[in-house]
């Protein structure tokens, strides 16, 4: 594959950029503008905004949920193919080995869970 083979792609990229840029520019320059207060307001699903987003603080507690989710999500992703393939493993005589490997994996994750629990990562408040 030579660089020249990609020339069509490059031409396409340039045309796409130019067309998009020109349309935006034209709309910006010649489009009719009549600003009203209603239009300048931030869109919040049609209702009137309650206070400015600059001053509103929100809880970041959700990140703990997100991290726990990743933990268990990964566990599921690894366990399901293992469970599906376990029968073949057993037929080949490596059943106990496959079980042991997954046991090690799950117990490492369990230590993480114990840590999270004791640190209060599962409490909402």
């Amino acid at each position, binding site marked *: 594959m*030579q660089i020249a083979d990609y020339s069509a792609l490059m031409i396409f990229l340039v045309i796409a950029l130019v067309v998009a840029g020109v349309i935006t520019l034209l709309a910006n320059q010649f489009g009719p503008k009549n600003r009203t207060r209603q239009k300048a307001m931030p869109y919040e699903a049609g209702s009137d905004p309650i206070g400015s987003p600059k001053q509103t603080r929100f809880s970041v507690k959700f990140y703990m949920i997100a991290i726990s989710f990743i933990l268990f999500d990964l566990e599921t992703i690894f366990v399901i193919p293992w469970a599906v393939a376990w029968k073949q493993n057993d037929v080949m005589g490596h059943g106990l080995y496959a079980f042991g490997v997954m046991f090690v994996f799950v117990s490492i994750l369990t230590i993480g869970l114990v840590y999270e629990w*004791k640190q209060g990562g599962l409490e909402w408040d």
Partner: protein
Amino acid sequence: MLHALMQTGFPLLGLLTPPSGAEYAALIPGAIAALVAMLVVLVDTFHRPGTRRDYLAYISAVGMGVVVLSCWALWDSTIDRPVFHGMLYLDKFGLFFAALAAAAGGLALLQVPAYMNFQRMDRGEFYMLVLFSVSGAIFMANAADLLTVFIALELMSIPVYCLAGYMRRDGRGAEAAMKYFVLGAFSAGLMLYGMALIYGVTGTTNLEYIGINLSRVIETGAVETGFGMIVLGVLLVLSGFAFKIAAVPFHIWTPDVYTGSPSPGVGFMSTVVKAGAFAAMLRVLFVAFEDPMLRGGFYGTGWVDVLFFMSAASMVLGNTVAIMQDNIKRMLAYSSIAHAGYILLGIVAAGARPEYFLFNDAVLFYLASYTFGTVGAFGVLSYLGRKGTTVETYEDIAGLGLKYPFAGLMMGVFMFSSAGIPPTAGFVGKLYIFRAAVDVGVQTGEFAFIGLSVLAVLTSVAGAYYYLRVLVCMYMKEPTRDDWVEASESKSARLSLGICAALTLALGILPATMLELSREGVVDFQGVPASVREVQREGGEQLKQIRDAAERSREPAPKGEVPQG
């Protein structure tokens, strides 16, 4: 991987069978480190609030000691092919680095209680992060596959990113963690991209197969199409390693991160992370990228030339910028850049031609000498402090040498070692590195190597200025404020400093044992092509002769001494 195995006629069934029992030996050092880390997690979970966590330091240090012992026990059980379907090596080279990483980790952790007591930040996470990172460094040194290299690199780095932000109430800590994480993630991404390109050309991630396939691609003249990809891949992989070892074009993060991170953690990250990255770099360069076309040096342009300029730039920049610093941690950060330059000089000399492969032992020895000196120096910085802070600037330590003789003496040993002044390890390390470069220069008639070692000597003279300035401040200046700083009561910190100093002096006065170990590590380096294996065999025979001669000279025992078995 699968593709490569089929290509080389490896039976596919082999992939589906579990590895044999003997192969698990390759896991032992890294697995022990990980187990100790998990043990510390569990123990800390059930920690009684309100009491101190010093015992975690003892548990970790004992665990790290067990890792070192396991390396010693496994020393003669090399397996001559990569185990776990081509994922890990078990050889003396890897074990050398594993023992080094574990020793440095254990020594750094022993200093933590003193530091935590000053900073009022006694939390168990510090120990866990360091221990997980040690296990990553160990796996990185044993990696036989680009995937293992990358996973181990992340296992080593991610805890260190958290460690950088450990002082969460300190704005500089947050800055350090953020910078380190963003730049580190970026460089890891670049490295992964390089690995993807290499995989694209060779169809395998196993280092040995990459070496074979790259040579084949270059030989058969498929170069036309693929060579740009190979070059880009090699450069990207190199840049990933250069970031971790803080060599010059990729050093920008170092001073800020080292200044913002907790002192014992810096001692850890400037030694273990660097050692792990150097080990993996040696593996990748000498196993996968060993083709003369990629090696360069005398045949054209290759990684030897890239490292040559990185080495020169690191030495010059590190040593000159360090002179102007007021903060000791910042000064040590620049000095660690300079040390990376010296180590690269050794790699350049050893990589110049296949027959100089054994000069890598200077690299291993230098890393060992650098490790103990640096962990110790940061240990002294965490050993002196007061409520809420530890010493950092030259002003802070003014006059402390006489007030706290132990700390002053220790700092003296570590600074002399870093500056490379005779009875210490740093001198012997520098001597062997420079000698390797000069030898290569003389043997090949290539003056660039001699020029580079002259530059190295000159820059290390410049380095003596700022290392000795620490001692001048400690001994020849009046304290700026009375009772501002006190020495820690912690016995473990004192033990750690003592061990570091003893090792630094021992490596300087009696370097033979460590030299022999590093020579054995290089001779036993697995996976190299046949031309280098020949060199290794000769080196092994030489080593045997030296040992026999030493044995013979010991036999007519002096009076009053019992001859050793």
